[in-house]
């Protein structure tokens, strides 16, 4: 499984690095489809708002399927984002091959004294110095294995939730249909966002091992940044968000058995924001992952400069 996923994200060195991959164009197309679906749900909501006084039953039906379709729209755009991230991973490996080829000729011909193993401080935080590329961290291995299953399970949950929303639209008094729609779709959204977070983790893993490969190929001691605080925050926030997404699903199922419409309304009043909080925490983690990627890139460029100017 991991090897098959690796082949999706790491091109063969013999492939043409100048060519265009289709991740970007397919991702943009898919994102546009999601945006159009969201526009359809806006129109549906405006129609429901206009009819809520004169025909409340039709309005409730419209709102039920509109909820399901909105989540499908968001999921479509998020899958598009995931596809673009896969494209970034592929491109990062081509960058590694290009830097390897280029640095071999650009490296300063008079290297200074070599450095031993240990730790050192850099402008971008503490780093380790090793003779070879350090093995991937457990969290990196997990990210590389889990991104696809998370995306696939999330997409399935959102689609099954959409079918539940159609059932809900057929019987707007059904608490079970309302609970399954909301709980399952937001569990799916959480999983898709986690899949995106795992892809960002895979990008960080790629930057770490790719940077190591470049230095090792040149016969240099391998300088690798230690896991920064932002990366640790990323893991914590993502895990918390996924746990909230799972918890809200279980709580919605519990709420579906609440006695009377008032009981279910009281549960829904806080479960709605709770499920949004789950997605929000994963998004907050994603910000941290992106910030970490920015820092690692800054470190890598400064390392490349060092190799060119000092040979070390």
């Amino acid at each position: 499984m991991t090897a098959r996923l690796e082949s999706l994200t790491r091109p063969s060195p013999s492939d043409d690095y100048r060519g265009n991959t289709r991740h970007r164009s397919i991702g943009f197309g898919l994102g546009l489809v999601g945006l159009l679906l969201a526009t359809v749900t806006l129109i549906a909501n405006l129609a429901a708002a206009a009819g809520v006084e004169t025909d409340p039953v039709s309005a409730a039906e419209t709102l039920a399927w509109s909820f399901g379709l909105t989540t499908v729209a968001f999921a479509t755009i998020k899958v598009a984002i995931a596809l673009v991230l896969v494209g970034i991973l592929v491109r990062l490996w081509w960058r590694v091959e290009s830097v390897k080829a280029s640095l071999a000729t650009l490296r300063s011909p008079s290297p200074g004294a070599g450095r031993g193993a240990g730790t050192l401080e850099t402008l971008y935080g503490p780093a380790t110095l090793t003779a070879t590329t350090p093995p991937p961290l457990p969290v990196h291995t997990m990210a590389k294995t889990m991104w696809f299953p998370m995306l696939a399970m999330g997409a399935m949950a959102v689609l099954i939730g959409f079918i539940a929303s159609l059932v809900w639209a057929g019987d707007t008094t059904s608490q079970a249909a309302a609970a399954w729609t909301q709980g399952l779709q937001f569990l799916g959204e959480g999983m898709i966002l986690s899949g995106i977070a795992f892809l960002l983790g895979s990008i960080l893993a790629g930057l770490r091992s790719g940077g190591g490969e470049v230095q090792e190929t040149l016969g240099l001691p391998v300088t690798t940044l230690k896991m920064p605080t932002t990366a640790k925050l990323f893991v914590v926030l993502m895990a918390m968000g996924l746990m909230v997404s799972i918890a809200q699903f279980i709580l919605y199922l519990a709420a579906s058995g609440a006695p009377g419409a008032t009981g279910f309304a009281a549960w829904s009043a806080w479960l709605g924001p709770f499920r949004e909080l789950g997605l929000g925490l994963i998004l907050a983690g994603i910000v941290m992952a992106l910030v970490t990627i920015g820092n690692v890139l800054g470190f890598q460029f400064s390392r490349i400069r060092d190799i060119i100017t000092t040979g070390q």
Partner: protein
Amino acid sequence: MTTTTTRPTFETVTSEHSVGYNAPQKMGRRLWAPMWALGLMGWAVGFVLAIVRANEISSGGSEATIARLSHVVPAFMFLGFLGVLTAVSFAIARILGAFRKGGGDVQETVGPVETLRMPKTAKAFMALMMMGMMVLAVTVIIHLVVAANVTDSNLVSTEQWAIGLEGFRRLGVAIYLFAITLGLGTIIHVLRFQSIRVRELRRS
């Protein structure tokens, strides 16, 4: 002194020195953290108010208060999403800045610096991000205005506003997410350019 050249695929600017960060990238570097914090604060307030609302419903509280909170809660929750989605966008701008400055710094060590002109996808990324931000910000403001004007006599129109604004909130988030797709797509474009450019470098 810079000169502009056009390649078959990449439009670039050539200069003697690294051009550094552009204005949006500088903004991204400064503002991602405050926007991230805004997101967390928005959700914290929104979630506490949601618990208050749930309590009002279960204890048979005033309908006007429940209706008022049905506007205030999403206002704060989506203020949170506005913050975090803006932080995501700024973090992407920061990554693009790392490529622009880092790529320039590396080239500067061996000769002239070629920098990509801002691609169309990056321009669309910024435009859509601002559009998404406007939609969400206006929606949040209207939610608060409606909440401030709730009375026992206008509960139906309050619900109509809630349903309509929900649609706009969703559209705002969808626009943001699509903008993020474009921003990430720009990174692919930059990586492709850099993979080609780095092989062209020769010690002068």
